[in-house]
Structure formats: C-alpha cells, structure tokens
C-alpha cells in the first residue's frame, strides 16, 4: 500500500470556514467577531440528589457557585455556565490540569469533555446586538438580557448557547457556542447578517 501523506495537526473549529480579516460595509466596523480557540470545555450533569455535593466541590476547587438559573459564574480561570436543570458547562481558558479537575468533579456528576466539540465566537461592537437580533428569538435588550445572563436557543436553526459578558467601551459583549459540525451553517448566516454593519474578524484565546 502506498504511503499517504497525512496531517495530524490540530485544527480549530473555524479552520476552513472563517479567517481573520474584514467583510461587509467599509469604514469603521460595527461588529467584532473573535474566533475563540484553545479553551477547555466540559459538560457537568448532576443527579438531583448529588447537586449539593457537586456544588460544595466546585466551590472548594474553583471558588464558584453553580448557577441554579440561566446565568454564568465567572472566575479568574474558570467559568461555569448554566446548561439546563442540574446541568452546567465548565470552561477554562487553558487545558492545563483540566483532566485532573474533571476527574475530581466526576465523583459527583456525569462529566464529559467537550473541548473540541463546540465552535465559539465572541461578538462585540456597537452593532453586535443588531446582528444577533436577526437570528435570536429572544429579547436581548439590556433590561431583558442582563450581563451574565445565559440562554439556550436556536440561531438560524442551529442550536446555540449564548451569554452576555461585561460591556466593553464600544457596546455589549456576547459569547456564543455552537456544535462544531454546524459552524459553517452558522457562519454563512453570520456573514449575511453582519455584512451591512461591517465586521472585523480575529482569532483569540478563549
């Protein structure tokens, strides 16, 4: 059998779909999109009667409280995002030591590594809310969707996990997680929706 040249280099979720640069209206960009790479992600699902023990463990290890409602709890290196009743996503900026942390949590919950399963995007800029309004069926007005609020919903028929971070100087900041296999579909919706505002795309650590 002939040798086949094979590349086993890691590929980001946006590779071959989106690249850094600009698209849409000329001039100052209304929307900034950062393709987040390198983060660690895991789903953490508790039984109703193990939630208390899980909560104590998370508090001891990370100093974070499991949000019982659709909210995000942010720490210096870890975030915990509500993902349904008795379900959360644990996110870390770096994957160092992540496996050890997950095995400690697995005493109290069903834990599943999802680091490469999602494509993540951070959206900001003065028109970020206007772009999302074209595909998100929720009211994202600041009075209805506050900083730290989380939603599981659909964007352009793609299941999406969405939350709002602290505002930046130029407007609101949202992060959105999508199934990695749907990143291309989402991106085609996003390009069509953000074009009129002008968009600058960059890569970043998440």
């Amino acid at each position, binding site marked *: 059998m002939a040798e086949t040249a094979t590349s086993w280099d890691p590929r980001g979720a946006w590779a071959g779909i989106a690249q850094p640069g600009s698209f849409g209206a000329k001039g100052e960009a209304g929307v900034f999109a950062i393709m987040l790479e390198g983060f660690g992600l895991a789903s953490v699902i508790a039984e*109703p009667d193990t939630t208390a023990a899980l909560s104590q463990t998370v508090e001891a290890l990370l100093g974070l409280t499991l949000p019982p409602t*659709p909210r995000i709890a942010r720490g210096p290196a870890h975030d915990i995002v509500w993902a*349904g*009743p008795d*379900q959360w996503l644990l996110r870390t900026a770096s994957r160092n030591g992540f496996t050890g942390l997950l095995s400690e949590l697995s005493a109290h919950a069903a834990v599943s590594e999802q680091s490469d399963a999602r494509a993540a995007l951070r959206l900001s800029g003065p028109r970020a809310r206007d772009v999302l309004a074209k595909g998100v*069926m*929720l009211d994202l007005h600041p009075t209805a969707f506050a900083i730290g609020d989380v*939603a*599981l*919903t*659909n964007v352009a028929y793609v*299941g999406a996990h969405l939350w709002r971070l602290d505002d930046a100087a130029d407007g609101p900041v949202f992060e959105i997680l999508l199934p990695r296999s749907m990143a291309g579909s989402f991106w085609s919706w996003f390009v069509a929706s953000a074009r009129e505002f002008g968009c600058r795309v960059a890569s970043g650590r998440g």
Partner: protein
Amino acid sequence: MRINCPHCGARDAQEFTYLGAADPQRPDGLAATEAAMTDYVYMRDNPAGPHRELWYHGAGCHSWLIVTRDTRTHAIALVEPAKTRKAGAAA
C-alpha cells in the same frame, strides 16, 4: 404561541416539540390485556377546553414539560416540568 418554560423563560413554540396527552399511563408491560393496550395507544379524549399535554424543549433546556393549554384559545394556564410528576407518585 409562546410557552413559558420553567427553566428558560418565555420562548416561541417553534423551540418545542409536541408529543400528546400527558395523562395516559402505560399499562404494565406483558401483563396488560390487549384491550388495555389498545386504550392506551389509540384512545384520546380530544377535549374542547383545558388539555394537559407533553412538550419537549428541544431547542432550549431539553426538558419535558407538562403544559395545560386551552385547545380553543391556545391560552396556557400552567407549565410544569414533567419530571416532578414522575418523582412524585404513581399518578
């Protein structure tokens, strides 16, 4: 129509999938008579008025919900998680 998910808040009906009446209970496996299974599988009340029904929040929190909806007006009186009923008692 919007359904007020107890976990996610008010969401459009297209985020949910409808299953059917919430109250029929499956008879006990092989012990059930043919008549009891026929009744469970096929016979429904089709009320004009309040109806307890199962909805699945597939685009949101993935919870099964019991929605009490008026079939004439679509007015929703109550939405509750289905699992609390299951944990409660043999209804």
